[in-house]
């Protein structure tokens, strides 16, 4: 017995390969999580540069920095990079780091699969970005890749499709790993309804991923065979149907939206109780609301295509089902507000981002409700109003939740505290200029500016200028983020206690800071679980 303990203690400190082997052959969930987060940050930077280029081109009417096709490539690649390269890998990185710590598991259930699912990504991204440099340039048909336009692009077209296949495989493998880990490796006593909300939302997200990534793969593969093997799935001249692609794509696309936002709901549900020093209000309602949102996400895809000429009955169905999503989403927001109600609030950086999330994600939800009303959507569809809507839910929604999560758990990962003052600067610059950037786009859309245009009529200049200035400052202030993280890892003040946050509950805070390379080699005790489950 004593020997066994010795081996365990030995394993805890050793078996950490050094040099490049540690990363290339990584099977440790913390190392893989770190690599995912670094990859996501890199892609966020690249996608952000594309966004800066877009806002520069749109600074004023008649601006001609780029050829229209190049501009279309930039919007297309900005969307694909941010969705598949930045936000999704960031969630998988956080899942890798946090799920085993939060459920008391020693690692992810399938460590080698984990390695594979990460190492596919650099190849996928390289292929996607390399398509900028092939003859004809990157695909310029929008991230939605509608045929027949998509069929008009050259060598970049198969490259993008292959990249999407790779990213899809990576996501599916990651999702399988998350489900197997949660279902099999929970510590004794960690029942499903004791799991932290981040674990719950990720479990549901993982099922969504497995359900819809193959649908996307199918849709793009059909485009591929239309292009190279003479099929006519989407080619009207051959008896095919371009609208079929829209249906299949959005059957993937809408659950995808929730893949991007559900883990954010989880993180917000961790942060708000901690800094309100009060348990989460309506824990079970939160779980059920998440599950209902996930279910509803499969029956609302038609709201992306109200102008394609579906029968009125179908438009009515999609309008009503979409409006229904407001109910569980509302429940979540009300629960967060009720968690803060009569709490004891303090505003460290994670909480600041969480509070901003509550306000700004709600604004995105309101415009979403307006977009659900079909007659109004006839006017909003394809305009900057839609651009404003989805950027509100993705930037101050998903991205702010990622920032909040990193500022919340970084001390646990590194064992050091970051520079709070700088992090608050990062927050205030972000929250002010994200609104300067995106709020005027509501006006532009309502006044009639279509999206995805490289040049516009002079009456749209004023608000585009405001938006671009907001964009430049927002973009520039994001440079603070990697600086703060690197500075923290290198020279942050070491943390003695298990948790730097006095209100934090959960198994990850029962471990020392930094979390040991191999954690939960012995399962947590019931006392730890009970303390953690106070939320």
């Amino acid at each position, binding site marked *: 017995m004593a020997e066994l303990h010795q081996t365990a203690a030995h394993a805890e400190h050793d078996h950490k390969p050094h040099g490049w082997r540690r990363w290339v052959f990584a099977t440790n969930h913390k190392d893989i999580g770190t690599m995912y987060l670094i990859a996501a940050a890199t892609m966020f930077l690249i996608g952000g540069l594309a966004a800066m280029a877009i806002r520069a081109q749109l600074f004023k009417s008649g601006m001609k920095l780029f050829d229209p096709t190049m501009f279309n490539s930039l919007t297309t690649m900005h969307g694909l990079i941010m969705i598949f390269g930045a936000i999704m890998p960031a969630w998988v990185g956080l899942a890798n780091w946090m799920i085993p710590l939060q459920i008391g598991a020693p690692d992810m259930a399938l460590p080698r699969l984990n390695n594979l699912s990460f190492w596919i990504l650099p190849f996928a991204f390289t292929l996607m970005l390399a398509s900028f440099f092939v003859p004809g340039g990157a695909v310029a048909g929008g991230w939605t890749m509608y045929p027949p336009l998509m069929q008009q692009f050259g060598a970049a077209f198969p490259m993008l499709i292959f990249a999407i296949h790779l990213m899809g495989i990576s996501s599916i493998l990651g999702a399988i790993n998350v489900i197997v880990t949660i279902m099999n490796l929970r510590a004794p006593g960690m029942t499903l309804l004791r799991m932290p909300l981040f674990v719950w939302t990720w479990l549901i997200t993982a099922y969504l991923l497995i359900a819809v990534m193959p649908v996307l793969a199918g849709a793009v593969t059909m485009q591929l065979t239309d292009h190279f093997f003479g099929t006519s799935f989407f080619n009207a001249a051959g008896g095919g149907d371009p609208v079929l692609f829209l249906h299949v794509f959005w059957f993937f696309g809408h659950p995808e939206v929730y893949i991007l936002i559900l883990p954010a709901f989880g993180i917000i549900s961790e942060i708000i109780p901690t800094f309100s020093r009060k348990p989460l*209000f309506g824990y079970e309602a939160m779980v059920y609301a998440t599950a209902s949102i996930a279910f509803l996400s499969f029956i609302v895809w038609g709201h992306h295509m109200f102008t394609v000429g579906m029968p009125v009955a179908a438009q009515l169905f999609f*309008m009503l089902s979409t409006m229904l999503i407001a109910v569980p989403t509302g429940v979540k927001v009300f629960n967060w507000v009720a968690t803060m109600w009569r*709490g004891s609030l303090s505003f460290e950086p994670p909480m600041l981002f969480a509070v901003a999330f509550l306000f700004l994600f709600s604004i995105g939800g309101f415009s979403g409700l307006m977009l659900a009303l079909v*007659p109004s959507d006839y*006017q909003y569809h394809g305009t900057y109003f839609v651009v404003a809507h989805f950027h509100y839910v993705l930037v101050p929604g998903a991205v702010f939740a990622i920032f909040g999560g990193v500022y919340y758990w970084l001390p646990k990962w590194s064992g050091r505290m970051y520079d709070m003052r700088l992090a608050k600067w990062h927050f205030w610059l972000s929250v002010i200029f994200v609104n300067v950037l995106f709020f005027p786009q509501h006006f532009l859309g309502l*006044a009639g500016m279509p999206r995805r245009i490289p*040049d516009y009529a002079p009456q749209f200049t004023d608000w585009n200028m405001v938006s671009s200035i907001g964009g430049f400052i927002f973009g520039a202030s994001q440079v603070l983020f990697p600086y703060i993280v690197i500075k923290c890892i290198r020279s942050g003040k070491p943390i003695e206690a298990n948790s730097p946050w006095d209100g934090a509950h959960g198994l990850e805070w029962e471990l020392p800071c930094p979390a040991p390379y191999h954690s939960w080699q012995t399962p947590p005790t019931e006392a730890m679980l009970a303390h953690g489950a106070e939320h």
Partner: protein
Amino acid sequence: MKRARLGRLLGSSVLGLAGRLPLAWGASGWDELNMPRGVTSASKSIYALHMMALWVCVGIAVVVFGVMIWSLIFHRKSRGAVPDVTLTHSTKVEVVWTTVPVLILVGMAIPAARLLVKINNNTDPQVNIRVTGFQWGWRYQYLGTTVSVISKISASSNAASQLHSGIRPTSVPHYLLSVDHQVVVPVGEKVRLLITSIDVIHSWWVPDLGVKRDAIPGYINEASFTIAADRPGTYRGQCTELCGRGHAYMPIVVRAVTPAAYQAWLKKHSSPRARRPRTPRQRP
């Protein structure tokens, strides 16, 4: 009516704040901020629905954000707030905040559904026009006549839009929103559009008419509008579905004239034999 006036008031106060911003262009500032009311009964109803939804959202926001702001101010640790850790569940409150939103949604869905059915009624048109999108322009064929119009971006806008043109957009009348040949329709008569495309997906949108419908190869989509008899004029729109390099350069201009003038225009442009459609020239 009251709502609309309130909206205008809010708009003008927002504009007052924004007055320090470089608002060089806007003659009527409200138009820069909100959806146009338009000139058809559909567009006016859509505007009313949009404003109703907007005010419902503002109302919900005031309540929810109000409670949040109250918490942020009065339930701070720095003010010595003590957390009420027993407040974790309340069936009564949870039932209320599930059912009240449902009722609000039903209240919004009913007028929206009514309007949806109404504006999708394409029966009994007086004028039928087939609209065909192409890369990059629109072709209009007046069914039952020999009149056909091919409409592309105006030469002045086209010249100014070229790389290194050196032409200021403000010096071009209706930059990017003017065409060589406008589509002419009568006011006070129901016009039905049969919309399709010969290459990729486009979308025909004129905000003032409240009509946006995709032009899809292999499909013929329907949409219809009746411009108010007292609103002849020129109404401008753009393609709203990404269709390639020239997507921003295929505007739509509708000239609405009196029925008599419309008939005269038709007669003038009719030819004894059906005119062969010209092949659209590609943008260089």
